[in-house]
């Protein structure tokens, strides 16, 4: 096979209706970053381990490198940029900054998109449970302690505790 197969897709990204022709072999995050210039989602391994590419698809967090862009046809995709614009995780982001729950920041968008799922459930969680929930997201800088602190603080505030 020599040609590069492409196809038309239509999807909603961060609330905006988007129609594009995509290469079928391209994964979702390459599409978001390259075609839509949404560079907040990062690529750390492209084999589904590091979690830097985590994005929300149809309401749940997924690995953006383990899904083809073409598969997102008709889907609702939310990236860190979208979560920021809607203010859904403004409290979590503020807690990350205040607690210095990031250093290089390369993992932060994925970490936040994942943690957003935990917060959405609005159920109490122990530090161990928070660590467990985030254990598919690699951070090389912080050692995780500050991240757990920031998520815990935000969750407790939301639960009024």
């Amino acid at each position: 096979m020599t040609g590069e197969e492409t196809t038309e897709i239509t999807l909603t990204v961060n609330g905006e209706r988007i129609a594009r022709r995509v290469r079928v072999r391209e994964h979702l995050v390459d599409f978001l970053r390259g075609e839509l210039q949404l560079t907040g989602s990062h690529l750390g391994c492209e084999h589904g381990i590091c979690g830097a590419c985590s994005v929300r698809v149809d309401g749940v967090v997924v690995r953006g490198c383990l899904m083809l862009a073409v598969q997102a046809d008709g889907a609702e995709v939310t990236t860190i940029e979208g979560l920021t614009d809607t203010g859904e995780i403004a409290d979590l982001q503020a807690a990350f900054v205040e607690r210095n729950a990031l250093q290089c920041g390369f993992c932060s968008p994925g970490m936040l998109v994942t943690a957003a799922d935990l917060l959405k459930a609005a159920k109490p969680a122990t530090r161990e449970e928070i660590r467990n929930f985030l254990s598919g997201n690699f951070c090389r800088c912080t050692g995780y302690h500050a991240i757990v602190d920031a998520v815990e603080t935000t969750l407790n505030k939301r639960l009024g505790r």
Partner: protein
Amino acid sequence: MKAPKFSYVRAESVDHALALLDQHGDEARILAGGQSLMPTLNMRLSRPQLLIDINRLDALKGIALQGDRVRIGALARHVEVLNSPVVAKNLPLIAEAMPHVAHVAVRNRGTFGGSVALADPAAEMPACALALGATFVVQSSKGRREIAADSYFKGLYETARAVNEILVEALIPVEKPGTVSVFLELARRHGDFAMAGLACHARIDKGVIAEARLVYFASEVRPTLATRAIAAIKGKPWNDATRDAALAALADDLDPMTNLHGSAAMKLHLQRVLTRRAIDQAVARARAA
């Protein structure tokens, strides 16, 4: 690390997918949750000419109680199995195993059927399905057939499913009252594929092991029913002698792989530790029930 070129078709129906499989044979791959296939594509370890995306086939979805069996559609996502009240009530073994499956983002996308179809030796669901005596339903353009889990897992990533067949669903007998199950695995980190693991389903009457299915995974090329160890414990009370006999028999049941995660000797050792712990727990659970 970008995938090589391939063609992509979104299957409109199971028949459509099957027709494409007939047409392209082993040059086509079924794309379900993609959590194992996509990494191999990105790393160019897998080079299909055609991906057949089955994600929108409703016929393959859902989890439901059907008589004395639970039907888990091949496209049921891990997260659906994890949160399913039907599974929690009727398949406690799978409910216990599910939190060990990867991490939240992977569970949101990965499918039960994908796990069974790929048959990764360290995957949890194949072992559970085998321990519970599941039946897998596969379909080709010629029709459907059922394959008992006992004869489904053939070798390393090798199953009884033919190239032109799609895994449609698993039919898993509900765990009957009076039976207990225990799932244990040892993984270096939470959510990793295990180094050793055991799915155990048993009936224990007054401390005597009336029936048991012990399925070992991760150490073996495929989930393995330990027939000799089972024979060693069947009809026996769980005491030191039974335990020693079972652990001894395990050496004949298992043929652990030496790989990055450790030597065969260590894996046999770990499976023995898990055996002891699992049956201790099963006995305790039976007593408590």
